[in-house]
Each structure stands twice: as structure tokens, then as C-alpha cells.
């Protein structure tokens, strides 16, 4: 077991290095930060001086190694745009993204499972059919369009909810939260629906089909024959067996929610890491882009690693073939 885990960790580190290398080699095509940093009245000398100062005149493997050297020590450099430590900025922005992702995930899981079960039990009901067909919207419409539609309806037309931002936040020693104020909670509604809608429909459809499968099994028939109440059959026997693949999918989608937050954050001007990344691209803020991409890949790799290890616990056959 230990060697299995070590091997997985080793592979993960290799993946991280490759992701970093690919990301770093792409920065050359994002553009040149110099013109954004110097004003209109810059001279060619200024350009050369700054290029040298930032190390942009060096070959890219050297730049990558210098970045890795710093990153290992936890130093991601200084943002070109804000002139502050990148790690400080990321820490400041992380709560907004994580809170949004958590609320969306909870919404998606609760609603997804509930609706999935409902549509499976009442598979021919009118309401169930209606839910199933509207859920197609959630799968097929792009996130930014859903966000803009929601803003148009609930902020511009009805004026119920704020159109952008995070509302008032409370600072709990380095962690800002919008969950404790009325305006913060109101601001969370639209972005979390936008972000969670796709995952919700995914979970709902998965739960429904798994549930339909399970309901056809013999042990459900026997349970019915024994005269058990519908409620007990559905929730005690059927749902439990449905959840195994659902949990796997949820685990993998969690990373996707945080990564996809970029689009939702842009539409709602949500002050999280995704918005920071988009702004960094426009300014060619290489230290911020590099740190964000590394952070996201660390997250994905970590989630996959945990899932792999969990599998090994659940299913001994997966513990490295031939051993």
C-alpha cells in the first residue's frame, strides 16, 4: 500500500512539473508585459532596463527554473500589475472562490440528488418530465449566458438581487466571508446558481439513471413483496446503492467547479482567483498567471490522488496489478 501511494505521489509531482513547463512556455504567446507597465512616455532604454530587471530577456528554460526555485520556497514573486506578493494576493482572493465553489457544490449536490430521486420515482409524471426537459438547458447553455440571463431577470428587471460583487464581507482573521451578512448572502445566490447549474443537472441525470437501474433489481422487488413502505425502499435500499458512482463524480467535479469559476466570476465581477487570473492575462502579469495555474493543477492532481487512493481502499483489485 505504501509503495502504491509513493508511486502515485511521484507521478503527481511529474505531472505538476509538466503542467508548469507547458504553462510557462505558453506565456511567451500571451504577449509582452512591458508596455502595460511603462507609460506612454517611455523610451526604448526604459523598455530594455525593465526587461532586464524582470529577467524577461533570459531564455525561457532559465525563467522556468527561476520560477520553480522560488515556488519550492513558497515565493511566487511580485505581481507586475499590483506590485504586491503574489502569494498575498492569492490568499486574499481564495476565500471568495472557495466560498462560491462550496455553496455551488452544496446546492448542486442537494438539489441534484433530490431531483434525481424524484424524477426516477415519478418517471412518467408531468412534473418529472418538465424537470428533465428543462434540465437540458442547464447542460446545453454556456455558463456566461446563464449568468447574464439571471442578472437581466433578477437584477435589471426585478431588482431583487445585486448584479455584481460579493456584497459586504466580514473578516475572520485572514478569511473574508460573505456568509454572515445579508448583502453577502444575497450576492451569493445568482453566481452560485450559475456555477452550480451544470453540475446539478449532471448529478440529477446520473442519480436518475442509476436509481432507475437499481429499482429494477430483484432485491427491490423482494422488498416490495415483503410489504416495506415505499419511502423505506426508495431511500434506505435504492438510494444508498445509487450513491457509489455519484460520489466519484462529485469528487471529480469539485475541481471543475473551482476551475470553471473563472467564467462565473467574470460575469458577476466576483472578486475571486478566477477574476484575478483573467485580469492577469490582460495585463500579462506572468507571476500571477504562473502561480494560479500551478495552484489549480496542484488541486486537480491532489483530488485525483485522493480519489485513486480511495479506490484502492474500496477495491483491493486496483492496488497495482500483479501484487
Amino acid at each position, binding site marked *: 500500500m505504501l509503495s502504491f501511494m509513493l508511486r502515485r505521489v511521484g507521478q503527481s509531482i511529474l505531472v505538476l512539473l509538466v503542467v508548469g513547463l507547458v504553462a510557462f512556455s505558453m506565456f511567451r*504567446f*500571451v*504577449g*509582452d*508585459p*512591458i*508596455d*502595460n*507597465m*511603462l*507609460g*506612454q*512616455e*517611455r*523610451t*526604448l*532604454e526604459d*523598455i530594455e532596463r525593465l526587461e532586464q*530587471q*524582470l529577467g524577461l530577456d533570459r531564455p525561457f528554460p532559465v525563467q522556468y527554473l527561476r520560477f520553480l526555485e522560488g515556488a519550492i520556497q513558497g515565493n511566487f514573486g*511580485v505581481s*507586475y*500589475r*499590483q*506590485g*504586491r506578493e503574489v502569494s498575498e*494576493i492569492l490568499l*486574499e482572493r481564495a476565500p471568495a472562490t472557495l466560498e462560491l465553489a462550496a455553496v455551488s457544490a452544496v446546492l448542486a449536490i442537494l438539489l441534484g440528488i433530490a431531483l434525481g430521486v424524484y424524477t426516477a420515482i415519478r418517471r412518467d409524471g408531468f412534473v418529472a418530465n418538465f424537470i428533465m426537459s428543462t434540465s437540458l438547458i442547464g447542460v446545453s447553455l454556456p455558463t456566461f449566458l446563464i449568468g*447574464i440571463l439571471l*442578472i*437581466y431577470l433578477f*437584477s*435589471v428587471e426585478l*431588482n431583487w438581487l*445585486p*448584479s*455584481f*460583487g460579493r456584497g459586504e464581507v466580514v473578516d475572520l482573521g485572514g478569511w473574508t466571508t460573505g456568509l454572515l451578512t445579508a448583502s453577502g448572502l444575497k450576492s451569493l445566490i445568482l453566481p452560485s446558481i450559475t456555477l452550480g447549474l451544470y453540475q446539478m443537472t449532471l448529478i440529477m441525470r446520473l442519480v436518475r439513471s442509476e436509481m432507475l437501474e437499481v429499482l429494477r433489481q430483484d432485491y427491490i422487488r423482494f422488498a416490495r413483496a415483503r410489504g416495506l413502505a415505499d419511502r423505506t425502499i426508495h431511500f434506505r435500499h435504492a438510494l444508498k446503492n445509487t450513491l457509489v458512482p455519484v460520489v466519484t463524480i462529485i469528487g471529480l467535479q469539485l475541481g471543475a467547479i473551482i476551475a470553471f469559476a473563472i467564467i462565473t466570476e*467574470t*460575469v*458577476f*465581477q466576483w*472578486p475571486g482567483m478566477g*477574476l*484575478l487570473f*483573467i*485580469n492577469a492575462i*490582460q*495585463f*500579462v502579469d506572468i507571476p500571477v498567471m504562473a502561480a494560479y495555474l500551478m495552484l489549480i493543477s496542484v488541486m486537480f492532481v491532489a483530488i485525483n490522488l485522493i480519489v485513486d487512493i480511495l479506490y484502492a481502499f474500496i477495491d483491493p483489485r486496483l492496488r497495482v496489478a500483479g501484487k
Partner: protein
Amino acid sequence: MHTYLCSAALVAVLAAPAFAADFKFAVTTDPQTMDPHAVNSAPVLGFLNNVYEGLVRRGKDMSIEPSLAASWEPIGNGEGWRFNLRRGVTFHDGAEFNADDVIFSYERASHEAADVRSWFAPVSSVVKVDDFTVDIMTSAPNPIFPDSIANWMMMDSGWAEANGAARPDKESGNYATLNANGTGTFRITAREPDLRTVLEPFGGWWDTAEHNITRAELTPIQNSATAMSALISGDVDFINPVPIQDITRLQQNPDVNVIQGVEARVIMLGFDQQAGAAESGQGASDLFLDARAREAVAKAVNVPAILQTIMRGNAAVASQLVSPAMRGFSEAVTPYAHDPEGARALIEEAGIAGSTVNFKCPNNRYLNDESVCQAVTSMLAQVGLEPVLNAMPVQNYWPELRADNFDMYLLGWSPGTLDAEHPIRFLGSTPNGEKKLGSWNFGGYSNARVDELLPRIQSEIDDGKRQKMLDEVATIISDEVAYVPMYVQPLVWGARSNIALTQRPDNFFILRWVTVN
């Protein structure tokens, strides 16, 4: 009558606090620093004009008026300028403003680490005469010096030194990057970069306040659709800019006003005019070395049609490198007339029919820049050239221009000094790194007479003689078709209908002219 006046005054007094309000405004670009000397960019200087002040300031009509200097006069025959400082001015932290702060701000702003140091290129020394008199000596007579320092903001020497911010530091930041201590109308009470910046009126401000804002909050909103929704739903009171295509929709909304004006920025076409350019850059040819080829482009481009369709009638045709609102604008030149027949004839004459034109264009720098370039491309194709348009984000665009990989390109120029001399220095002069001239003259346009006139324009005290020389330069540049000026970029702001404000062509949003009704 008397009673009526009195009661009106009383109502005003009573009403003011009731109306006094929270004001929320949104812009696309967050000011990247609170340091007035570190970065020379419109979002930073425009915002900090509410917090810091200079010796002089610009009024609603862009004219220069006294600010921290109560008056000024030239010394001798143009050896420099004497500024008499205003007494009784204090910084937000209570420190007194005096000549030492001017000297300190000069040293700080002209330091190598300061982006704004080019403003002080003509300055030879700054001398403190007494606590409230400062002489700024220039190496040559400089008639427009007071005009050129309206954005040079005064910082308290004591505050900066105590907080380790005696020099600007853009690359890694210092105390002044996040904090501010000016003499201006508003002080910063909260600063969260990229998220929000909160301003409150400074009680000890030396001038009388016209505004009725009790608290102002700036939020950057990058997505224009989000900014529009925020304005329409009333979540913000002001946005800048409003996308051109949304103007009509906003105008139909009774809760919102659209404020339109003309910006200082002129959008033009530039050409590669260096001999041997074909060797220096990728895909560049010697096509535009021939003035007839440039003139053909000028005749082929139908600017009014572009403005009608792409700008939806919201921009004005430009005749030269500056807009009519700038000092030194020349009446001597007129816009090129649209003449496709003439263009075709010139192209035949020059023997360049069917030539490929490598046309570079940004797609996220100016309003609708890529669409404008597409229109230009089809207009050139109609007269017998073969333009190949390559539009790219501005981050990739400038390096491409510096590498000379173009025959023709699109450029917008907004003169920082609001004077016609500015574009001559940066666009019209032969590139010369040593003298810091022509640093944006990517095409390498060069005319000996223009180079000769520039220093004389810079040091001419007499307005009439100066204008004559500016006219001459404008005529040369126009006759030689060094650039094809197309239009002055429109300025479009959106505000809730209960907001009264003033729009200036430099696109600075000045909070002290805002009233919330």
C-alpha cells in the same frame, strides 16, 4: 425678493445634507497604484486627481487654473517659472504643505524609478526661494511648462520618508502603493486593489466643495455587460465607458443618462517608411516609402462611412494628430477627402496595383479597433491593393510594431500635455534614443524641417509665432501623409439620471464636480 432669496438659501442648506449621498462608480481598469509618481497612465492619474493635487490643475474646460500654487510667473526671459504657493494648505494627515514638499515631490517624480520623469526633462533645477516660493528653472525657455505639470502631484516629504516611500517603487511596491496622503478633495479610507477603493471628503480641504458626496466607492468592473446591468439596476451610479453599441439602448432608459463627448485621442493609420524595411521586419515591404502610396490610402479610406456604421455617428473626423480641443490645434490643414478614383489613379501611377499590404491592428486597445481595421481593409481592396489584416491583442501588438513587422498599422494618440507639440515629439520626430524623440514613431517617418522646428516650438514664448510653426509642421505632416488621421475617439459615460457631473476630454472623472440629486 429678499425673503425669497433667504428662504431659497435656507432650503439649500437644509437640503444639502439630506441629499448628500453615497456615490458608487465603476471603471474598467482599477488604478494599479495609489502612488502618483510611479505610473504614468490615465486610470491612475485620473483617479488620483481626486486625492492629490498639483501646483496647477485643469478646470472643467481643461484650462489651467491655480491649485497649490496661488500664482506663477515666468522668470526673466524664460529662464524658468516662479510659483507662489498657497498658504494654509494641509495634507490629509494634518501636515502643512510648503516649499520643501515641492522640492521633495520634484526629486521623487523625476527619479529614475518614476514613470512620470519625462515631464521634467526640460527642468534644470528647482530652487526654494522661501517657504512659500519655488523657482523651477528650465534649460531652455518653456512656455507651456505650467500646462505640462497639471498631473504632477504633491506628496508630503515627512509622510513619505517616515513610511519608507521616499522613492516610487512600481516593481515591488511600497507604502505609497496602497496608501495615500494628498491635499485633495477626498482622502482614501479603504483600499483593496482590484476590489474597491473608498473615498471620503477631506474636511480640511482649502477650496470650497461643490460636490455633495459623503462617501464614494470605486469598483472595477471589466465585463461591459456586467457594468451595464449594474448601472441600469442602480447598483452603481456611474460607469465608464459605455460600449458604443449600447448607447441607443441606454438612451431609451429614463433612469439613466448617457454623457458623450470627444476624447483627446486621435485614431490614425501609420506606415512603414524606412528604406530597407523589407529586411528588418517580417512581411514588411518598401511599399509605403513612396508618398503616392500613402496618399492613395488617405484617399481610399472613407472615414465618414466608418464613423456612421462602426461608431454609430459618435465620433468626429480628425484632420491632424491632435483633436480641436487641444492647445496648438492647426486650422491650416483639413481632413483628406474620400476619393477612390484618385486613389486608384495614384496606385496605377506608382505601379503598386495588387501589392500585398501587411496591415497590423490591435483588437482590444481602442473602441471597436478591429472592426475599423476590417473596414479599412475592404476600402483598400476596392482601390486595387491587397491588404492582409492581422488583428491581435495589444499585449502582442506593441512588440510586433517594435520589431517592424508591418507595412501599415493602427495607432491612437492622446497627448499627455494636451498640446500639439506632444505628438510631434513622439510621432513626428525622427526616432532618436539619445534625445528621447520619436519613441512611438514605429514607421520611422523623418523630415528634417520637422526635426528642426520641434525644439523651436518647445522654447517659443510668443503664442503667435509658436502657432505659426505648429501650423507649418501640421502642413508638412499632412502633405507628406506621414500618418492618416481618421477620427477622434468618442468618450461615452453612463450615469444615473439623478447625477450631475462634468466630462473632460482627458477622460478624467473628477469627483468634486459630482452632485447627487
